[in-house]
């Protein structure tokens, strides 16, 4: 699907579409994207349960200097804040968001429009509130252990 939004994040054209066959490979891809990101960027991820969103973010954050044991799924806690070498990183999970108004109570604007790097799982759930310049990635099961990760 063609998006009418344009991201100002320029991932290397060699990076996507990508195919991975293990959690390690998904993390490695996240780490490669990390090198192209700057503070203030927003990366929005979509994909079914078990598609590798948290693994991708784990690799991305590790590459930015976050201790791996800190990077866990924020599904229940909604937001995890990490300190990367280039500044704060906000790891957001919208899976449990039922009403878009809940995002205001979360202080979502401070995360998405702040100076930190903002990484959002289940981004489609908060679609209208995503910044226009967010980099949107979709993770898709291809059967077996294969997954496709592409800009969407």
């Amino acid at each position, binding site marked *: 699907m063609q998006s009418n939004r344009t991201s100002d994040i320029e991932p290397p054209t060699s990076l996507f579409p990508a195919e991975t066959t293990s*959690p390690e490979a998904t993390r490695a891809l996240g780490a490669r994207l990390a090198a192209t990101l700057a503070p203030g960027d927003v990366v929005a991820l979509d994909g079914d*349960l*078990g598609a590798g969103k*948290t*693994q991708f973010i*784990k690799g991305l954050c590790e590459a930015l200097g976050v201790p*791996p*044991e*800190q990077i*866990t*799924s924020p*599904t*229940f*806690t*909604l*937001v*995890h*804040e*990490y*300190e990367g070498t280039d500044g704060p990183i906000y790891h957001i999970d919208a899976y*449990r968001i039922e*009403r878009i108004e*809940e995002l205001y*109570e*979360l*202080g979502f604007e401070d995360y998405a429009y702040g100076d930190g790097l903002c990484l959002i799982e289940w981004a489609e759930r908060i679609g209208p509130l995503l910044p226009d310049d967010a980099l949107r990635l979709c993770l898709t*099961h291809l*059967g*077996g*252990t294969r997954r496709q990760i592409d800009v969407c």
Partner: protein
Amino acid sequence: MTHPVLLGIESSCDDTAAAVVAGGRLRSSVVSSQDVHETFGGVVPELASRDHQRLIVPVVQQALAEAEVAPGDLDAVAATYGPGLAGALLVGLSFAKAYAFGLDVPLVGVNHLEGHIYSVFIEPPAPAFPYLCLVVSGGHTQLVLVEDGFQHHLLGTTRDDAAGEAFDKVGTLLGLGYPGGPAIDRLAQEGDPSFHDFPRTRLGYDFSFSGLKTSVLYYLNEMPDDERAAFLQEHLADVCASFQQAIVDVLIDALRNALHETGVAHVAIVGGVSANTALRAAATDLADEEGVTLHIPHPRYSVDNAAMIAVTAHHKLAAGHTSPLTLTAAPSLAL
């Protein structure tokens, strides 16, 4: 202060909660999603999660009223200051700071995870130090050696999903809705835990449940769509029991290894997943085998609540630990 009266406040995630403790004994415990039937301008609203600003005053008022305590009776005010959501933590903490300042009594900041660890002190019998504590909830999975009052050593933690999150998400994969943890527990009681051998990831004292979630997904995806529905109709309880057994095995094995290594005589399981039937049964067997005493709080005090914050604060106050009014919310606070 031989018999201090404390108000405790918890607002780190979904629920707004307040509790009163007097002389270390719980006098009231109010949790917004369970206990609040307050009317707002004549209407009884459907209470939304994380509506802390609207709920904090009625929840505190209800906790004081049920405890038959007036604000002037309070000797200290306690609140969770992390880990949790910045905005959510700020509501409870700011309220507590203002209340403590207004009443001219000390503020006691409490770490939410410490609250869970000391939730076994809400009702007797309390464990003796040192004890092992497994914190298992929707947001946390940690194995902690509690060496003495407020001296902890973190032995292990999850590297991806929390145990409760794995339950809830696998429940969704199995068509049980979200959160599916309680439904899995219920169905598993009728199922065969050896029906399918889901993988157990063992990483010393660390945990990983993401691979287990994915293995359930692969297991279901291997079947053609038309066969899957018929299969689940017949074997849903068996799949639930097999998945649950994998989680319980990993948690219990880590506890057993830690018991052998530390030689402690008391073990506690706290957090929402401690209500799981199979985990409780396996932990009871483990405690019998190892000759140790098992402590699991009442389910009311396993989920997020303020009783654990007030009781933890009681012990902190007794040890002379109070917090300055400049205390700020710490969303990433570690144990």
